[in-house]
């Protein structure tokens, strides 16, 4: 397939990876108060880790553009805080409820970072398209 925009594969991989991260962070935020999941345990925060991947060689001199992909989505095994709430259906004998280990402030920061990266990569595509269109008008 024709590859008219330089490094489009790299940028596409970044968009995919950032989207996954956005989804996972949104899921964390949505489940910040889920004290009982399908396995009966409070929701465990999920962490996305990225790793670089070598794309096909392309462009000048065979330089490889390094794309990015989601390496792993791991569960954060640390325990969430215990909160005193005797009227909660999941409260134990002492009236304490184990909340999920989701820290909303941290999740919001992650959300913003992922979102900004996503936007940045979109602007890479837009800019590359403009450059290519300018090149197409050479000579006229």
């Amino acid at each position, binding site marked *: 397939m*024709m590859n008219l925009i330089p490094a489009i594969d790299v940028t596409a991989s970044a968009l995919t990876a950032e989207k996954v991260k956005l989804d996972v962070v949104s899921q964390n935020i949505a489940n910040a108060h889920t004290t009982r999941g399908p396995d009966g345990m409070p929701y465990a925060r999920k962490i996305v880790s990225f790793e670089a991947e070598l794309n096909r060689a*392309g462009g000048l001199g065979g330089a490889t553009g390094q794309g990015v992909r989601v390496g792993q989505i791991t569960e954060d095994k640390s325990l969430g805080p215990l909160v005193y709430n005797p009227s909660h259906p999941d409260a134990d004998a002492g009236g304490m409820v184990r909340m999920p280990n989701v820290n909303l402030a941290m999740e919001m920061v992650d959300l913003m970072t992922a979102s900004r990266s996503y936007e940045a990569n979109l602007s890479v595509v837009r800019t590359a398209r403009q450059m290519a269109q300018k090149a*197409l008008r050479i000579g006229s």
Partner: protein
Amino acid sequence: MISPIAQSLNSAYGVKELQEQIKQAASQPPGGLPKVSDVEKPGGLGPIGPARGPSGTSFSDMLGDLVQAVDGKSKAADAEAQKLMLGESNNIHQSMIAMQESSLAFTLLVEVRNKLVESYQELMRMPV
């Protein structure tokens, strides 16, 4: 002598033939001039030979070079476009530049041919 050259001038791709014709015509003295023996006197006209530039290149050589250069440029443009089409390269600008250069080279060739035709016709109009 006249008709073969006129015919080849009229075909756009007849430049190679034109080149051959010019070489031949230029290397033979045109008919109608006095015989060589009448002319070979000191101070008289020598036989007409092909015009030579200062570095020894004849006009037909220059035309030949031009044709080859145009050919080379258009081959390069084709190669670049093919690389782009097959996804082996993603440099649009190289392909565009190659295309424009080959089109320019071809325009140059066509203009040279036009000027040759014009000057030939001019020449033919001269009363002897």
